[in-house]
């Protein structure tokens, strides 16, 4: 290939290779990106997508191969150089400074100035404008760390979009976004595309990929499988290209029977929350989860789903209401108290609240089980290996090396490790907060199947996902949240559709669910309104 790259392409990567100790992350990968297109980079977890992006933007050195940007060969020494050359990137893990404000995060490194000094009012004005454009209404001077992961992701996107670049790279930008935000993002992406920007997009949501992309490149095990026009490749073909075999994953998923409350034998509740709430976080709610039941939480970004999970697990303390486990009232003093009652909580932000990056896969997986046993009764090594092996296989964690450091795993594989940690504790109530975030189609189906199997075996599950379809598919019962209050609870049956839930969220009320005492619960009852919000 000539040095000037592919004619017409803004970016050409040829024969790219990258090794990490023990892993060949990229092997002879070619890639082309044209102006005015959205190009999806597809592949299983650990296929090398993020690595390709990092190699391109100078986060990692390239071992071999050639990168041509706009006709000139380049080899960036760091993200700054890439940015200056017109490549703007949102990396997979949200990488912002939690201690700085939203506005500062958006403009850091390119602050608007006046007389050499930072023009603070301008900085805030522009940030607000930019976020408005993405349909996000947040206080731009709030510290970023106080906002949910999804908002942080939107901020990162806003920052990247604002850098008027030639190439925009988005590595799994939608992994924790709701349909609404995804819509906003796509609107902006289309507009940028119109203006001639080249966009590289990574996502495990096939629907999104088909909706937005023009072409796609598929990676498998660090090698390029091929480049396709989106229109010409069926979803099934895409999946088999990614996975490498004719796996009828999608069909299987379609076939999965809708769970229904009718089929569930409601013996005894595992947990019952009555009027449980926390000032400023979630208004008092009532929720009962039975043995073998999957309860889904539906709601928009920031609607308070995570808060419910945290209260049930004792990660935060409730300041109102009552919580019963097995019929006995308890005060959750902390995660340990919950774990002692066989409750497990797989948190949504794997990086800050989940994994310990410098520990190995094995150590991360056994961590919760070991914590529950106490320090003096170490899990015998043989048993550790057994458990870890089983879940590495079951969840197809790559690399399948239990002694690899978790921090060096790809995002999706990290998520699987976190899930494995809680599965081996064999809980009676498993709280899953966005368990499928950043997980590839194959593994997602695997996890969904797992939830079904587990609940069939009597485990109670509280399932939170930004993907409404997933919630609908798995849950016996769905609680709908809006503005940090539970507005409805519905038994999942054929009547219940995504549209109907969206309608409930939009209108703010549905058929009032009965609360723990069996008495109908009116969401507008002033007694249960504990200060909704204070700014």
């Amino acid at each position, binding site marked *: 290939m000539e040095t000037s790259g592919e004619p017409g392409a803004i970016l050409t990567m040829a024969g790219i290779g990258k090794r990490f100790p023990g892993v060949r992350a990229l092997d002879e990968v070619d890639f082309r990106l044209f102006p005015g297109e959205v190009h999806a980079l597809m592949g299983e977890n650990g296929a090398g997508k993020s690595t390709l992006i990092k190699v391109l933007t100078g986060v990692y050195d390239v071992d071999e191969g050639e990168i041509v940007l706009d006709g000139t060969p380049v080899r960036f020494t760091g993200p700054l150089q890439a940015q200056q050359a017109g490549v703007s990137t949102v990396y997979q893990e949200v990488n912002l400074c939690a201690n700085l404000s939203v506005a500062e995060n958006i403009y850091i490194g390119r602050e608007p100035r006046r007389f050499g000094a930072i023009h603070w009012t301008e900085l805030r004005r522009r940030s607000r404008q930019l976020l408005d454009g993405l349909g996000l209404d947040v206080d731009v001077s709030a510290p970023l760390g106080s906002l949910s992961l999804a908002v942080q992701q939107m901020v990162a996107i806003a920052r990247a979009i604002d850098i008027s670049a030639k190439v925009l790279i988005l590595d799994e930008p939608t992994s924790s976004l709701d349909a609404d935000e995804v819509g906003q993002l796509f609107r902006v992406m289309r507009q940028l595309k119109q203006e001639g920007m080249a966009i590289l997009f990574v996502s495990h949501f096939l629907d999104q990929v088909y909706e937005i992309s023009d072409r796609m490149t598929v990676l498998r095990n660090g090698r390029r499988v091929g480049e396709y026009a989106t229109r010409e490749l069926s979803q099934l073909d895409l999946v088999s290209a990614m996975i490498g075999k004719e796996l009828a994953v999608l069909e299987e998923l379609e076939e999965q029977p809708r769970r229904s409350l009718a089929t569930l034998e409601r013996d005894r509740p595992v947990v019952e929350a009555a009027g449980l709430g926390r000032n400023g*976080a979630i208004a008092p709610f009532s929720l009962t989860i039975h043995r073998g039941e999957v309860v889904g939480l539906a709601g928009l970004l920031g609607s308070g789903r995570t808060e419910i999970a945290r209260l049930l697990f004792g990660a935060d303390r409730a300041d109102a209401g009552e919580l019963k486990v097995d019929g006995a009232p308890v005060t959750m003093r902390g995660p340990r108290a919950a774990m002692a009652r066989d409750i497990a909580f797989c948190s949504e932000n794997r990086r800050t609240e989940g994994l310990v990056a410098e520990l190995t896969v094995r150590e991360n997986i056994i961590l919760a089980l070991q914590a529950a046993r106490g320090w003096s009764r170490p899990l015998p090594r043989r048993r550790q290996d057994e458990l870890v092996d089983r879940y590495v296989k079951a969840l197809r964690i790559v690399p399948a090396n239990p002694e690899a450091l978790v921090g060096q795993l790809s995002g999706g594989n990290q998520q699987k490790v976190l899930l494995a940690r809680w599965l081996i504790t064999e809980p009676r109530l498993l709280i899953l907060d966005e368990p499928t975030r950043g997980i590839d189609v194959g593994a997602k189906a695997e996890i969904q199947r797992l939830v079904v199997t587990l609940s069939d075996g009597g485990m109670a599950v509280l399932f939170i996902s930004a993907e409404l379809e997933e919630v609908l598919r798995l849950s016996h019962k769905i609680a709908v949240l809006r503005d940090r209050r539970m507005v409805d609870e519905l038994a999942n049956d054929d009547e219940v559709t995504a549209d109907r839930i969206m309608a409930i969220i939009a209108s703010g009320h549905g058929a009032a669910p009965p609360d723990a005492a069996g008495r109908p619960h009116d969401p507008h009852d002033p007694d249960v309104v504990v200060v909704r919000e204070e700014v």
Partner: protein
Amino acid sequence: MANLVRHRFFWPVLTLVVLLVSNLFFTPDFFAIDVRQGHLYGSLVDIVRFGAPLILVSIGMTLVIATGGIDLSVGSVVAICGALACLRISELGDQNSVLGVLAAVGLALGLALLLGAWNGLLVAQVGIQPIIATLILMVAGRGLAQLITDGQIITINSSPYKLIGGGYWLTVPFSILVALLVFGLALLLTRRTALGLLIESVGGNAEASRLAGIHSRRIIFTGYVFAAFCAGVAGLMISSNVSSADGNNAGLWIELDAILAVVIGGTSLAGGRFSLGGTVLGALIIQTLTTTIYSIGIPPETTLLFKALVVTIVCLLQSPAFRARVFGRRRKPPPPPAPEREPQPKVEVPA
């Protein structure tokens, strides 16, 4: 009122006021300030004057700590700079030659910058952990200072040099002016330009900053150079104040006082957000504490205990967890090392 109490400077200012007022019982004219022989004179002036070196060192330390580092070598830099300047001046034919003194001062400050660059190099380029990297210079620097002074104390007799630490300018002690100048400079550099923001970003999340295209290394490097520069000026001041350089004892323990001042001022040792004003306040508290110990005549055996007691109280008051337990239920996000049971730091935003 509640707002006042919650202001981040409330507790430090209160401590300072309490310390100052408690002096009044032992020295009734403690707050008196008058002009004698054209010089401002009074206990309060003395506190700032003697506190000036600590203020300087603490300002530099603040920036280093904000980048997520720490600088243990400032005490040695103080000693080295004082020693070098005094050595050069002692070698002058005419110790009162202004040019000669300026040259000596310039040389000493140049060396300070170099020492800072060495620290910065070890931390930012080589990647040695800050405590260790600066520990090296802390140890080596004492040795260097001793070599410069030849293990002796160099005494000089130079009125231009004397000005820096012991002189007056328009009735105000010159050292106070220098400290003010450096403080103003640091404020200007960090708050009027983007430097402060960049430092906070690097200290808050170095990796994210790098991905955002910030030259983290350069920022960190600059921090150490600036800290060494401040320490150098402090070294000149201390040696000028006593017209001599003591390689062994000049600046001994000043790094710990400076770290303390930074923390009392509300900057977290974990890096990130910093407050220069708070640091100056912290340094003043420490200096006032020292002065108080002398003026109320704490017996020497208990001086250390007394000092520790006051510091403990200030630190407790600064701790959100402690305040919450003692003064009421308003809680703040937990500091990293004590993660349990604290409520989540969720700031409410109208959704």
